[in-house]
């Protein structure tokens, strides 16, 4: 398809409706905390213990790392205690792109459903290739401050 045909095929209202539907579906899949995080900060944090099935016993040890899911950006892994950034996991779910919130949902489904499988299919890079590490550090700081806010 040529660039002009592609431009003609783009329908801004349809895309906006698609994103609205995607946000609603995402809201019904994640918990209230994750949804509030997404609404406020535009990202979702996933801890590896979410990778077990609900019928399984919780892990005895606390997770040492976590992931940040951004729409249409790589998944970022970091060390919870120190905030050290571990890497970018670049994954794409088909082409053309899904609505932003469907992209987040696809990452969340795959990461919580099969963490190892998803990461094995990703291209791994040091943080900085697609996401500015300063932005990620700012997001982590904002998340920490936000979580400490009473009555949020």
């Amino acid at each position, binding site marked *: 398809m040529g660039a002009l045909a592609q431009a003609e095929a783009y329908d801004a209202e349809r895309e906006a409706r698609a994103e609205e539907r995607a946000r609603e579906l995402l809201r019904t899949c994640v918990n209230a905390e994750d949804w509030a995080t997404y609404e406020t900060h535009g990202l979702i944090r996933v801890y590896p213990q979410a990778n077990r099935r609900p019928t399984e016993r919780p892990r005895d040890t606390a997770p040492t790392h976590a992931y940040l899911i951004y729409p249409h950006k790589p998944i970022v892994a970091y060390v919870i205690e120190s905030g050290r950034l571990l890497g970018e996991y670049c*994954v794409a779910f088909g082409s053309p792109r899904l609505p932003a919130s469907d992209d987040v949902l696809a990452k969340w489904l795959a990461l919580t459903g099969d963490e190892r499988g998803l990461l094995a299919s990703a*291209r791994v890079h040091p943080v900085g290739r697609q996401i500015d590490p300063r932005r990620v550090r700012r997001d982590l700081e904002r998340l920490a401050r936000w979580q400490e806010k009473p009555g949020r």
Partner: protein
Amino acid sequence: MRLLALRPGHGEVLIAEGDVADAEQEQALTAAFRAQLELGMWAAVPLSEPDGRRAAELVKSFDQVPRDADRVIFFPRAAGG
């Protein structure tokens, strides 16, 4: 049970809907499920616990879908971006 697929430009699309307790509807759901996998989609069942924790279970056949699941979400297979 509803089978939903994430589609570029559309959000989720309802692929099939039916009652797994009804043999005919279960067959239709199974066929629709298989067709999505043949298109290269991944299938996930969103799950929740009373403690509020949420996660998903990736499934590769309709037999793996919990009988009480209310929806299965199909999305394009992940590839290195």
